């Protein structure tokens, strides 16, 4: 602060750094908010409205904090003579009671009015064109795309959405409580065993957003993530059509190794005899953004590591380790899976 009130002669020169400092601070603040998992870098209608609400409340809160602590400082360190009890009593009435009532009434009315706006029930009133069912399981996500009049498409650990359309999610859990959260698009919704929760979201910007599980769900809660890929509607339709068909790589060489080692007991690959339902569907695993529910790069080495020692990569995972297999066998399976695009 002292920079800005320096002597007149140097005033102009001194002020500039302050301005620059402010601009830099602002830029840092903004960049500090950016990110693929940031609620303050919105890419959806709900996240936008909530970010705005947040900044308004931060501004108001800052002013209130400064005023109250200023009052405290004045009362304890600055004033020389005590004020009258009457004046102090008035401070309680107006500062402690009336002012909060007015501010909170306005804030509450605004906050409540956002609820039907952000999550309109009209969107789920009739069967929507696209409904995505997501089931949280320790520690991954089962994803099923339901379109009116067509077969459901099963995938895992990645969700793709068309931009500019309100998408309905049905959220379930297979074991413990998880929470579904795409910070860039909007708030979270828990996945609770025995309850089907509904959430609607509308993305406004294409991109890939990281989406962590938000309710503590056991050892590897921190390692339960999915990618949300927001696409142009046409590209999305193409992608979903492709996803509904078997992968061109499904019949490739490694399939034998995959089946020989019993992988199909848990995993399914469309177009082959692998149809396990315990673990994630692998039909198009090679084309996903990440591997292992959002924690590994989708490359051959990751497959190898995951097949060999899944319990090291993900404590508490149900998949058994295959470190007893010869390296070539594991690599064959890994290459095969990477080829499932």
């Amino acid at each position, binding site marked *: 602060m002292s920079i800005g009130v320096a002597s007149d002669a140097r005033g102009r020169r001194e002020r500039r750094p302050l301005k620059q400092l402010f601009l830099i601070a602002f830029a840092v603040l903004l960049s500090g908010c950016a990110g693929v998992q940031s609620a303050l870098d919105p890419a959806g209608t709900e996240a936008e409205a909530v970010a705005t609400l947040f900044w308004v409340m931060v501004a108001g809160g800052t002013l209130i904090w400064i005023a109250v602590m200023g009052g405290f400082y004045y009362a304890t360190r600055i004033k020389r003579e005590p004020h009258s*009890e009457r004046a102090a*009593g008035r401070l309680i009435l107006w500062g402690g*009671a009336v002012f909060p*009532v007015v501010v*909170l*009434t306005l804030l*509450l*009315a605004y906050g*409540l*009015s956002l*609820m*039907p706006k952000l*999550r309109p*029930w009209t969107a*789920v009133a009739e069967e929507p064109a696209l409904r995505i069912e997501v089931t949280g399981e320790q520690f991954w996500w089962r994803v099923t795309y339901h379109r009116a009049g067509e077969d459901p498409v099963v995938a895992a650990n990645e969700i793709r959405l068309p931009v500019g359309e309100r998408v309905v999610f049905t959220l379930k859990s297979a074991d413990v409580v998880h929470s579904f959260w795409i910070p860039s698009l909007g708030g979270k919704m828990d996945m609770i065993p025995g309850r089907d*929760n*509904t*959430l*609607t979201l509308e993305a406004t910007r294409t991109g890939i957003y990281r989406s962590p599980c938000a309710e503590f769900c056991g050892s590897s809660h921190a390692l339960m993530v999915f990618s949300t890929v927001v696409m142009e509607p046409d590209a999305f339709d193409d992608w979903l059509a492709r996803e509904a068909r078997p992968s061109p790589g499904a019949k490739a060489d490694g399939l034998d190794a995959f089946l020989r080692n019993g992988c199909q007991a848990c995993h399914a690959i469309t177009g082959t005899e692998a149809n396990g339902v315990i673990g994630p569907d692998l039909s198009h695993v090679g084309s996903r953004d990440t591997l292992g529910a959002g924690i590994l790069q989708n490359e051959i080495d990751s497959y190898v590591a995951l097949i060999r020692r899944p319990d090291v990569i993900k404590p508490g995972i149900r998949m058994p380790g295959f470190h007893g297999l010869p390296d070539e066998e594991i690599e064959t399976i890994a290459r095969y899976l990477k080829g499932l695009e």
Partner: protein
Amino acid sequence: MRLIPKEVESLWTLFTAPTIWAVHFLVCYVGAAVFCAKRNALGLDFITVRSGIGIVTVIALLAILGSGWLAWRQWGFGTHEPPHDEPSHHDRNRFQGFATLLLCALSFVAVIFTAMPAAIITECNP
């Protein structure tokens, strides 16, 4: 012998208005929750819930006003300013009246807050 001794009854006047708030809150919450859980069986419209909440709100507010008037009277209609710190029966009564009045005011605002959702929310889900 009484189940609740007499003295508690008069200390209870302090808690009248917050208790009204609590009952109002519970009625609104339980009413809406049961309606939303059982709406298929009930066959009623959400407007029923909203008007129900409106009616109990009016009743609660009137009850708080009544309690507030009694408190105001106990306080001596504001003829005596706080702090009511004399060791007399008179000041003890004034103190109880004033504290009760303040609680009535708070409860009044809290009941209005609780009713606000019914004015804004028009459906159960999502």
